[in-house]
């Protein structure tokens, strides 16, 4: 039996194909203005990689910000549930999940059964979300993916007066004009990001083990700053792209719903 999970986020759309034992294939593409188009394209890509026909998919669960717009979904389940499911499957010792997406940040606390105890989320303010890093990368004229490596080369982080993305942007421009190195600015940006996420983590209270998911999990500079700030080791998921956690959780739910164990 083949099932699928489709996670439509604000910036990326993800699909995971699962057969009950392993991930057959996955895809990550940019979200489309019409979310349905993105969902189809991500599904086609994953099917092509796994060389399976779309018709052979028994069940699909949609999740994420655009979950209602997955045309081929049999059911929808919230992101919180899907992230928890996915992270617990990959790493059963996880008790706190920090998920930083393109436009939000969630901190989920779970029990030994992998059930959600409580969660806090920020989707009101761009600071502390992927969007903050995106804006800063643009000001620094570097690719978002390069920001992390750049920060690691910095040795004296600049301080940003305010967490607000708008004010931080003005600060970064000011530092650039003063001739401060991009590396030190990038380091300060990652520190500020970690600080903002740290506030949310502390609201949820932290239990070990802590794991990070979502696109920003790939920014190792931010993860390192967050570890320093919280004084814990953060587990990096390496066997699966951390951005796929939600889609994987959706696929796991799909497998259960389709009668698999």
């Amino acid at each position: 039996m083949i099932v699928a999970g489709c996670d439509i986020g604000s910036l990326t759309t993800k699909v995971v194909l699962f057969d009950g034992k392993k991930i057959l294939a996955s895809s990550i593409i940019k979200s489309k203005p019409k979310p349905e188009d993105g969902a189809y394209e991500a599904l086609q890509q994953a099917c092509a990689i796994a060389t399976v026909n779309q018709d052979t998919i028994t069940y699909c669960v949609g999740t994420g910000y655009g979950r209602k717009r997955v045309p081929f979904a049999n059911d929808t389940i919230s992101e919180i549930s899907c992230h928890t499911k996915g992270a617990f499957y990959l790493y059963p010792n996880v008790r706190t999940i920090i998920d930083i997406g393109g436009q939000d940040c969630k901190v989920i606390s779970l029990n030994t059964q992998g059930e959600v105890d409580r969660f806090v989320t920020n989707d009101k303010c761009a600071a502390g979300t992927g969007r903050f890093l995106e804006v800063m990368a643009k000001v620094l004229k570097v690719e978002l993916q390069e920001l992390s490596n750049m920060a690691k080369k910095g040795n004296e982080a600049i301080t940003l007066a305010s967490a607000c993305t708008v004010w931080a942007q003005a600060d970064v421009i000011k530092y650039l004009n003063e001739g401060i190195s991009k590396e030190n600015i990038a380091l300060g940006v990652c520190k500020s990001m970690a600080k903002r996420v740290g506030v949310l983590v502390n609201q949820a209270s932290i239990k070990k083990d802590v794991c990070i998911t979502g696109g920003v999990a790939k920014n190792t500079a931010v993860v390192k700053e967050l570890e320093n700030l919280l004084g814990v080791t953060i587990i990096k998921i390496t066997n699966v792209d951390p951005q796929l956690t939600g889609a994987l959780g959706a696929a796991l739910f799909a497998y259960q719903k389709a009668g698999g164990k």
Partner: protein
Amino acid sequence: MIVAGCDIGSTTAKAVILDDSTIIATILLPVEGSPKDAALLLLSSVQEKTGIQPSQIEAWCGTGYGQKNIPYASIVESEIVCHAKGIQFIDSDVRTIIDIGGQDAKVCRIDAYGNVQRYVYNDKCASGTGRFLEITADVLEVPITELAILDAKGVKEVTLSNQCVVFAETEVISLLNSGEDMGNIVKGLHRALASRVASLALSIGVEEKIAFTGGVAHNAGMVGALERVLKTKLVVHEYCQMMGALGAALIAQERIKNRVAS
């Protein structure tokens, strides 16, 4: 006796020249470069535009974000105190001041003598400040001075689901793409900022009369939006942007009078 007040804000620099109880000149300049540069430019344009020589001015009082960078100000006073003094001079019935500047918003409760009773301040989040309109006007590709005209053409307030400037920017783009009327979008933006500032005001409570000051008060659309949210008429004076500088000038005058008396 001629005195002057100087308010160096983040976006504009203002000066008010006072001769006894008459405002004889007001000057407004955009801030480009450092606060000190702006302060010096302000001094030279006072001379140019009014013919008043610096030696004729008995004292300068400075206020605002750049208050410490005004070389010629012998007195410095906080923005809140200056705003309270300024508005009391204009209309002594005012008990609440709502001031929206380029990079902050403040709400201040005053008594009948212009003394500050309580105040709240937001400079942490851009969404409750003039910057919100500046950035979204940029997305709409209209000068900020034209927002009021567009607002008047709107027939309904579009509800924005985002408060954050960064998220609202994206929302405005998708509203434009979906063919929403510019006037309605602007009305919605004014409503969003008004709601944000009103919740700041309500955190300390408001008492009438309420004056709306700061550069944003020149925008009639914004005045209407704030009046609808607060369900009351607002006092908006032609010198609404000059309140800090006016208050500073009044404080300079007071200090000199006290000095002479003692």
